[in-house]
């Protein structure tokens, strides 16, 4: 998952980035509204965390502009003042949820995951497709009830594919959303991950290869 964080307090920004990375997110950081707008326009994210009190372009305005440019990724707003006026304005501008500072990192991660899940159409934290179950909270994968051991990257690939079902996901897109920018982008690595993943989740065969384009996770109903 690739997330954008826009926060002007450097200490908090670093903490957030560190926590999200440790949760398996690829993270881009922006310290003001202008930078945030640039990143939001240039890259496609799975979620964004935006503080309302930002220099240059304030949070509400930033959200409005992103939404105006059809950026549909879920947005979680952070507010320090905690006034309802701010929360309502944030949500009206196009945010999907709010969190009042100070907050627990666990709470933020949970909310963010819920938003990503929600935007993919899953109601529960356990993403379920036939015999395959992926618990986003515990980061566990089960096939027909039996736990499957996956490496962190295998898990990320599966989670991303399950959150983007019935759509061709290119290798580049997978790399973008799984790794930080400075990571080695070798598409063979992805092929290896997917190959191993397919074996591990047998007999489930929902990950299809689309020749020359990438992968598609097909849901049971579309088979």
């Amino acid at each position, binding site marked *: 998952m690739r997330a954008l964080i826009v926060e002007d307090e450097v200490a908090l920004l670093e903490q957030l980035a560190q926590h999200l990375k440790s949760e398996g997110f690829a993270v881009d950081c922006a310290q003001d509204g202008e930078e945030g707008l640039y990143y939001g326009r240039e890259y496609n994210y799975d979620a964004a965390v935006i503080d309302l009190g930002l220099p240059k372009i304030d949070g509400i305005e930033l959200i409005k502009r992103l939404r105006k440019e059809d950026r549909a990724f879920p947005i979680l707003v952070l507010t320090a003042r905690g*006034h*309802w006026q701010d*929360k309502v304005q944030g949500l*009206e501008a196009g*945010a*999907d*949820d709010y969190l009042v500072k100070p907050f627990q990192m666990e709470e933020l991660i949970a909310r963010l995951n*819920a938003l990503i899940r929600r935007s993919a159409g899953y*109601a529960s934290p356990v993403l379920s497709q036939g015999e395959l179950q992926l618990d986003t909270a515990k980061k566990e994968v089960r096939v027909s009830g039996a736990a499957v051991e996956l490496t962190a990257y295998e898990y990320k690939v599966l989670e991303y594919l399950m959150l983007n079902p019935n759509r061709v996901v290119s290798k580049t897109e997978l790399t973008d959303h799984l790794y930080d920018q400075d990571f080695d982008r070798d598409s063979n690595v992805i092929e290896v991950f997917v190959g191993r993943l397919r074996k591990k989740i047998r007999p489930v065969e929902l990950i299809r290869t689309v020749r020359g384009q990438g992968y598609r996770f097909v849901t049971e109903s579309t088979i």
Partner: protein
Amino acid sequence: MNNSIQKRLLITTTCVLALFLTITGWVLDRAFSASVVAGAEEQLRLVIYSLMGSVQEQDGHLIFSQGVAEPRLTQPDSGLYAQVADELGERLWTSPSAVTTNVAFAAIDTQPGIFIFSDVAGLTPRFHLSYTVIWEDVDTEQVVFSAATDQLPFRAAIRQFRRSLGIGLGAATALFIFAQLLALHWGLLPLRTMAEEVKELESGERESLSKSYPKELEGLAENLDRFIVHEQRSRKRYRNALDDLAHSLKTPLAVVRNTLLDQTPDKSLLAEQLDRMETTVTHQLSKATASGPVMVGKTVSMSGLVGRLLRALQTAYLDRGISLETQLDEHVVARGDERDFMEMLGNLLENAFKYSHSSVRVCVARSASNPQRCVITIEDDGEGIPEAMREQVLHRGQRLDEIESGQGIGLAVVAELVALYNGGLEIGDSELGGARLILTLPWGSAR
């Protein structure tokens, strides 16, 4: 633009007064002058009549038999002159007064039976009157009687009148302006008093404005008073909140600082103290920033506000799939600060969404028992609010750090805001199975 009311009124009335007096003076002057000239004409006419009476005809000639009735005609240079002439301008008789004075009598008009009056300018301006008669059996066909009088005495009378008029009108003006000044001073006195009282309020010498203002200023004084009282209360609340904040932050800060000195700091103790500080900050800040009821403030549509909050909460709680049942009366309004209402309703509605299992019911209506109140009922199907917490929340003066964070702190904030607005907050059980909160607020148009 002139900034003094007194100056403005004074300039206006003085201008109007000056115009009025000028017109009055001019009209009076014209009327008096006309009456003086008419008097002169009348005097000359009498002279002519008396001349005509003293003329007799004898053998085709005119003879002035009796002495002239008007004594001034016999005195040389008396200022009153007369002459009788024939139609060719041949003098038949001249008054003794005109013997030494050259009087240019007006040209003879041949139209008989008409008095001709004229104002003759010259070195000595005079009024002239002539009258032509046809005299039968006389060698001259027509006889012209003329009389003239110096204008000097008449002009003197007019001058005298003008002087008196000027003095009179001047005195009236002075009196009027003086009266105007007095009236302004008296009329504007309440405003000056108000300014002084406000100054005293500022310096803290007085608590509120006095009650004895004239009818026109009553409304202003009342609103000002309310505003001041509100401002004082806000300031007090602000100060208290800051005091409380400082006080209740220092204890946990001291604990944290001392804990950090330990070799192995107790993390749970640190977390507990941080929680305590967080609760304090949330609570005291919301208390301090509340505006409170301003009677001159605008009215806020309750259904509009609740609708906005519900839409926002439905976005935030989208994945909970909560079924919402609403009954919002569009006409319900409350008077006060929109942000305060948003805080109260936002906290209550969020609690309902957060603690419900699957359904929330919201009703905005005018109170059936008291039309001066609006009632907002919020119900959910959650676990409900425990008795102990209800007590804690609604008991005023509760130490905030004794209230557990979570649902309680939000409710305590609401309870305090509600009290500020003289509203009511009732916590009960809903037929849905969870909590039912009934918020009552003063109706918007109530003053």
